[in-house]
C-alpha cells in the first residue's frame, strides 16, 4: 500500500476539497509558495491566484477577511503560519468568527477553517513553538481538531471544510514529514473527529493527541517489555470533545494518564481530567495523572527544549506512577 506524509495528506485534502467545491479558497502568508513547510505547494499553480491568495503580514486582517468571505458563502482556509501568532488573530476568531452565528439570531454562519501549526521542533524558539489549543477550546462556537497521523489529517481537513461554523485545524510541525500507509480516500460524510485507538491495552489508559501520540506509543512499547500493557487513545477532535470510547477504556483499566505538549496548567489535560473524574469516578483506582509542558517560556537550547516537554521515558515513568 502506498505511503504518504502528514503534509501530503493535508495538501491532498485541500486539493480534493478545492476541486469539489469552488467556494473553497486558501489565504495566508506565502501560501502560494507552499509556506515554510511546503504544505500548500502547487495549489496556486493548480487553482490559480484567484483561489490561493498570498497575503501581507496581517494576521488579524486576513482572518477578518476570511470571516467576511465566509459570511458571503465562501469556505476560506486561512493559514496562520505559527500557532504562536494566533494571538494576533484571536479577536477575529473569538469575538467575531465564533460569535456571529448566535449574535445574528442565526441569520449568519461562518464556515471558516483556520490551519495553523504548533509544537516544539528543532528549536524554533519561544515564539514559534507553543501549543495553544486550550485557548481555543474555551471559546464556544469554535471547533478544534489536532490530527496526529496522516490519514486523520486528511479526514480532519475534509471534515473541517464541511462544518457550518469555524474550525481550527492544529497541525504539528514535527509531524509534517511523518509517513503512514495511505488509506482509501473516499470521503465519508458520517465521519467525525473522535478518539482513535492507537494501541489496545489492559493496565492503564493514556489519553493524548497531536505529536504526543508517537511519544505515548514509544512509552507503551517500552513498558510492554516489563509486562505493562497500556492503551493509547489519540483524541483527534479537541472541541467538541467526545470522550465516550475513552470512558469505556477507563472503565476497563481504572487508571488514566493524560499527556500533551502544552503547558500543564490550564491545558486541555485539565478539562480531560475534570471530565473523566466526573464521569467515571467510581471506576478510578488512582488519581488521574497529567503530564505536559513545563510552565516556562520554551527555551531555545536543544537539550532544554527537549526537557520541557514529555519524553517517552517520562511517559513511561508516569504510567508506573499511575499504576503504583
Amino acid at each position, binding site marked *: 500500500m502506498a505511503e504518504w506524509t502528514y503534509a501530503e495528506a493535508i495538501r491532498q485534502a485541500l486539493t480534493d476539497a478545492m476541486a469539489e467545491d469552488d467556494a473553497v479558497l486558501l489565504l495566508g502568508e506565502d501560501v502560494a509558495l507552499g509556506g515554510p513547510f511546503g504544505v500548500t505547494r502547487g495549489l496556486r499553480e493548480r487553482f490559480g491566484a484567484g483561489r490561493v491568495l498570498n497575503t501581507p503580514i496581517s494576521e488579524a486582517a486576513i482572518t477578518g477577511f476570511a470571516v*467576511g468571505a465566509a459570511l458571503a458563502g465562501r469556505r476560506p482556509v486561512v493559514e496562520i503560519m505559527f500557532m504562536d501568532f494566533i494571538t494576533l488573530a484571536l479577536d477575529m476568531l473569538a469575538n467575531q468568527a465564533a460569535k456571529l452565528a448566535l449574535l445574528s439570531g442565526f441569520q449568519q454562519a461562518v464556515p471558516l477553517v483556520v490551519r495553523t501549526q504548533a509544537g516544539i521542533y528543532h528549536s524554533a524558539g519561544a515564539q514559534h513553538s507553543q501549543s495553544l489549543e486550550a485557548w481555543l477550546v474555551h471559546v464556544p*462556537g469554535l471547533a478544534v481538531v489536532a490530527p496526529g497521523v496522516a490519514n486523520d489529517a486528511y479526514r480532519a481537513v475534509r471534515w473541517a471544510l464541511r462544518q457550518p461554523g469555524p474550525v481550527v485545524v492544529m497541525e504539528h510541525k514535527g509531524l509534517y514529514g511523518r509517513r503512514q500507509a495511505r488509506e482509501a480516500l473516499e470521503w465519508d460524510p458520517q465521519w467525525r473527529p473522535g478518539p482513535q485507538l492507537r494501541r489496545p491495552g489492559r493496565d492503564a489508559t493514556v489519553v493524548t493527541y497531536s505529536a504526543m501520540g508517537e511519544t505515548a506509543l514509544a512509552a507503551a512499547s517500552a513498558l510492554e517489555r516489563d509486562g505493562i500493557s497500556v492503551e493509547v487513545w489519540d483524541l483527534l477532535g479537541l472541541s467538541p470533545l467526545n470522550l465516550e470510547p475513552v470512558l469505556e477504556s477507563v472503565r476497563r483499566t481504572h487508571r488514566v494518564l493524560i499527556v500533551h505538549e502544552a503547558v500543564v496548567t490550564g491545558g486541555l489535560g485539565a478539562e480531560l481530567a475534570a471530565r473523566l473524574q466526573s464521569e467515571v469516578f467510581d471506576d478510578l483506582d488512582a488519581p488521574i495523572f497529567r503530564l505536559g509542558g513545563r510552565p516556562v517560556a520554551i527555551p531555545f537550547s536543544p537539550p532544554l527544549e527537549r526537557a520541557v516537554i514529555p519524553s517517552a521515558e517520562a511517559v513511561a515513568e508516569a504510567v508506573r506512577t499511575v499504576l503504583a
Partner: protein
Amino acid sequence: MAIRVEDGIALYRAMFLIRRFEETVAEWVRAGLVPGFVHLAIGQEGAAVGVVHALDGRDVVFSGHRAHGHLLARGADPARVLAEILGRAEGVCRGLGGSMHLVDTAVGFWGATGVVGGTIPLALGAAWARQATGGVVAVFFGDGASTTGIFHESLNLASLWRLPVLFCCENNGYAEFTARAEQSPVAYARRFAEVYGIPSAGVDGSDVEAVFEAARAAVAEVRAGGPYFLEVEVARLSGHYEGDPQGYRSAEEQARQWARDPVRRWRDALAERGVAEEALAAVEEEVARQVEAAREQAQKAPWPDLTVLNHG
C-alpha cells in the same frame, strides 16, 4: 436644486425616522428600560442617510457600535430594531445581539460590532466574495477606529487587492470622552487612505445632500473597481453613550454643535427650496406614527425563550 424634491423628502423622512427612533431609545434609557450600552446617532443622521441612500439592493453594509441609524437607513423595520435593543424575541437578532450587534441580512445589513474596528476586515472579505454581483460593501466606523491596527491592515489589503469596499468614516471628533487631538496627530482619517492610493473625499455630515452626492460619486468609483474612502464630518449631538454626563465638554460647545444638526438643516433647506411646511409636517407626522407603532409593538414583544440558544 441638485437633487429632485421627492428624493430630498425621502432623505428627510429617513433622517427624521432615525432622530425619532433615537429619541425614543434615549427616553427609554432614562426610564431604565434599555439594557446594556447604547450609542446614539443623534447628529450623525446625515452620514447614515446620505451614504446608505447611495447604495442599492446588491450592496451590503457593515457598521460598528453606533449602528442604529445605518440599519434604519437600510430599511429595517423600526419595530424589530427597537425590539432588539430591548432584548426581545421579535428583535432582528431575536434579542441575542442587542444594540451593538445588530444584523438584518434581509436588508443587506451584515453586522455591527462592539469591538472598535472589528467589522472592517469582514467588509473586505465580503466584498471580495461578492465581486461578481457588482455589489459594493460599505463599512461604517468612527474616527477612533483609525487608531486601531486592524484599520490599517485593512486599508492595505483593500488597496492591494482593489476590493469594492466603501470605507465610511464618521468623524465626530471624539472617541468616547477624549477629543481626536488627544488620540492622533492626524485630524482626518482619509489621510491614511491617500497613502495607499485609495481615492477619498471629506464631506460635511450636516449637509445630507452633500453627503449623498459624495457617496454617489464614491459608490460609482467602487463599482468601477477598487476601494474608496469617504470621511463624513459629523457632530455627535448626544453623549458617547446615552447617559454620558459629558463633563469633558462645555455646555457652549454642545450648544454650538446643534447648529450642525443635519435634520434641522435639511428641513430648512427643503423649505427654502419651496417644499411646503405642510408637506414636511406630514412626513414628520407619518414618521411619528410609525415610531409610535414601533414602540408599542416592541414593548409588547415577548422575551426570548432559553431554547433559542440551542439553535446553533
